[in-house]
């Protein structure tokens, strides 16, 4: 069955937190990664079947990583129904960046549904984000993921889709 519902979601986070790897792990079709360095965004699509039975097509805008949102990045965010915030567990400062970005995004998109991903869980031993911080973050809507192993990736996107389509 073809999905008649489509939703735009954005992936935001600091540089090299693994957003593009997450997308590659998750999506059906994608344009070349070159777009990230040229246009500053990479579009991918993914059909998701929700537990309730409905199907949704996610249009994933993977926005090039920056500490702050540029003008063009703000444009790319417009019309998004939700977003995935990504931080690198091995670099604590990327979490700070993610939270700063969230503070910018939320007013722009009128507090949309979102999910946070503490990525690179496969390198848990090297994580700078402490266990205590993790516990707090998990309560706030974050989850752990590994683009390398696929852990937590699909579940995060599904959760976001469910939040967008209550």
């Amino acid at each position: 069955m073809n999905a008649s519902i489509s939703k735009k979601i954005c992936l935001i986070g600091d540089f090299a937190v693994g957003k593009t790897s997450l997308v590659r792990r998750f999506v059906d079709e994608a344009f070349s990664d070159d777009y990230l360095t040229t246009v500053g965004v990479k579009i991918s699509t993914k059909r998701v079947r929700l537990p309730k039975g409905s199907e949704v097509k996610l249009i994933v805008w993977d926005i090039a990583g920056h500490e702050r949102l540029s003008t063009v990045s703000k444009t790319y965010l417009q019309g998004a129904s939700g977003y995935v915030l990504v931080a690198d567990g091995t670099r604590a400062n990327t979490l700070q960046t993610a939270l700063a970005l969230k503070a910018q995004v939320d007013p722009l998109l009128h507090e949309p549904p979102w999910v946070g991903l503490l990525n690179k869980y496969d390198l848990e031993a090297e994580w700078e984000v402490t266990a205590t911080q993790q516990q707090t973050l998990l309560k706030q809507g974050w989850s752990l993921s590994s683009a390398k192993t696929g852990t937590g990736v699909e579940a995060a996107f599904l959760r976001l889709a469910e939040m967008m389509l209550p």
Partner: protein
Amino acid sequence: MSQHSEYEELQSLLLGNNKQLLQALKARIENPERRTRDVAEVLSAALHLAAQDKALRTALREPMQDAIRDSIRRNPHEIADLLYPVIFPAIRQSIEETLRAFVERIDTLIQQRFSVHALKWRVEAWRTGLPYTEVMLRHSIKYGVEHLLLIQNQSGLLLKHVHSKDALKTDSDAVSAMLTAIESFVRDSFSNTDKERLDRITFGQFMIHLAHGPHATLASVVRGLAPPDYLMRLKELLEDIHAAAAIQLRDFNGDTRQLDAIEPLLQRGFEREYVKPKAKHAASRPPRSLIKRGAMVAGVLLIGIVALSTYRHFEQQGIAALGQRLDAVPGVVVENITHRGDHWVVTGLRDPYAATPEQLLESAGKVGKKITFNLHPYVSLDPEIIFKKALPDLEIPAGLKIATESGMLQLSGQVPLDWYLRLRHTLNETQGSPLLDIRNLQIDLPSAERSIQNLLAGSNVLVTRNADALLVTGNLTPDDATRLQALIGQLSGKLSIELQKTAVTP
């Protein structure tokens, strides 16, 4: 004081003058006419205010639809009359466009079926593995819309997508988003204002035309080169789409089913124009068939001109030759020969002693035309005519030459013996002619030989030639001997007749 009056007193104490006001208001509300007037005064302002809220539209939608439906049912002609100027031109235009496209397509395909192009396309189809019809269609299309993507502004979400049957398959949602991203990227990178928009993107044989509206962008992926006014038509189509579904476009929540109604409208955007081989080089040179026809006509004309010229030439030659031949006839002067209908008219002069028209026709020989003579009589001084007038009983033999000199007719040439004898006889009868000089006249030897042999038929003699003389050998009868002597006398100086071994025997 009664209880009632106490109540009224209490009312007047509490309300004072407002009591009258309340009564007036009560009367106003209870009067339906007055109430109607009051509502009418504020109705338009109230509607205007309420229109800003979706609730009024929702509330009015069904009753208005029912009212319109009922109105159409009751008086369909009036509605038809109202819609006539809008609907019929649209239907006519649609039919014309469809037929024109169909006819052009059939025409093009028929023309190209057995062309060199067809062979090339077969090779291309074989090489690329594509169906031949697809290759043929791609090449026969001057330009054609392959995809129409209606995209929500900002979000880049695909609202509706229609594509041609032979269009390349693509993830239209991703394309829609990427086009929006690229448009945003270009605008943010090179422009400071939102008014400047990306109109066209070109790559290879494709061009994407982008028409921008308040809520949505219409992207048309065109193969080939669309006409310059194509973008304007695309914008008009987008305006129509906005007019039909502005709210759905603005409030799109990701459910494309909300926009199913605009799909027929979007289908209108499919344009294509086919290559017309006949007209391909029309501007620069005429079609080959026209050149061929022109060359044929020119050829026929040339041949005709050459044939006519040749005919005229030979005709002129024939006229000239006929003129020369007739002019050579003594006693005849040809002034001109004209062509009239299917015959020639010879105009000139003819001496009555000259050849008759019948004889002239024989002289003219075969000319392939009827000849009519228009000859006036005149007196000819031609020597032959003068001779005929002088000696009308004598025909002119072939070897006789007649000339005039110093007022005399000079006869010369070789003539038969019999003719010479008749001439001498005639001259003797007419006592000779001082105007006739026959000194140079000679007798044709072979004819003399035959004549003398015939003359001496009663004798046993043989007449032979010996140089310029005749030899008579054998036995002569006395009569023949006498005749021979007389002849020898007559021909003295003209013909030498020698007798050799002859004897006169009774």
